[in-house]
């Protein structure tokens, strides 16, 4: 049974390989599609590829997740890893600001 499934999977991959660009090219295009729209034929091939390739489908979903996480990352910095100004640096800054106000 396992062997049969494996054979079927390989067959799918063969079809995939024949019809669409390889995964490497697909994920490049998917990344680029975030920057500018793909051409019609490229979009069509991408869609076919995603229809049969689980790994690339996951990759695209995870790219969206990465995007969302990145957009929120500035507001989610755990206290333990947050860079801090040293106390003397803060004092220097305050002094400099005081000079500016007086001067």
């Amino acid at each position, binding site marked *: 049974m396992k062997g049969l499934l494996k054979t079927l999977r390989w067959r799918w991959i063969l079809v995939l390989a024949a019809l669409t660009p*390889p995964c*490497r090219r697909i994920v490049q295009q998917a990344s680029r599609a975030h920057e500018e729209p793909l051409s019609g034929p490229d979009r069509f091939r991408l869609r076919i590829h995603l229809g049969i390739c689980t790994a690339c489908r996951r990759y695209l979903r*995870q790219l969206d997740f*990465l995007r969302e996480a990145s*957009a929120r990352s500035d507001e989610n*910095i*755990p206290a333990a890893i947050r*860079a801090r100004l040293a106390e003397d640096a803060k004092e220097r800054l305050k002094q400099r600001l005081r000079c500016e106000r007086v001067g």
Partner: protein
Amino acid sequence: MTSPRLHPDPAVVPTGAEHRVQPATTGPRLDPERWVDEHGDYLFHFALSRLRDPVLAEDFVQEALLGALRSHGRFEGRSTERSWLTGILKNKILDHFRKAGRETSFTDLEFYGEEEGRAFENQAFPDHWNAALAPSEWTDAGGALDREEFWRVFHSCSGKLPERTARVFILREVDDMPSDEICATLGISPNNLWVMLHRARLALRRCLELNWFAARGSAEEES
């Protein structure tokens, strides 16, 4: 309370108008030393993650606060004080990138070329996913965003990106800057930008998978 020079440049605020805007926009808010206490660490982290140099980062925080002090009349309370200060800091950093981009050639492309090669090393089907490195299923990705531990992993992963790649990635994905503006600011070609973004995404995705999703999946199986 002392009354500092609120509008050193009379051209910025016409006389007469000054009296109307003063109580609402300046006066009580003009307390730059409090900015240091309340926003100093945040601004410093912001600068450090983009410049990767603590001395430079401190300089930029100072420049931003001085800039804010000089232009305080323009803060009209439409945004929070923090986002206003962050905006000033961001612009100072972009100016710095603009100059640096002209001075040095901007290549980071050798990084991750190898990693990308490995991910698609497939003897039977060249350039398809290598079975061992193909993306695995991520369980509860949405929930991860609420976990402090996830963010530790995230920042540690993005901190590992090479400097220039990280710069491009942060401008694009964290600051949401349009790609043509990034190219203009850094003086790089669109193609260069795409490759860097793509490699940054590949590397970050892999790092999160290894250090968060895979690690968590196996921890749950054990418990």
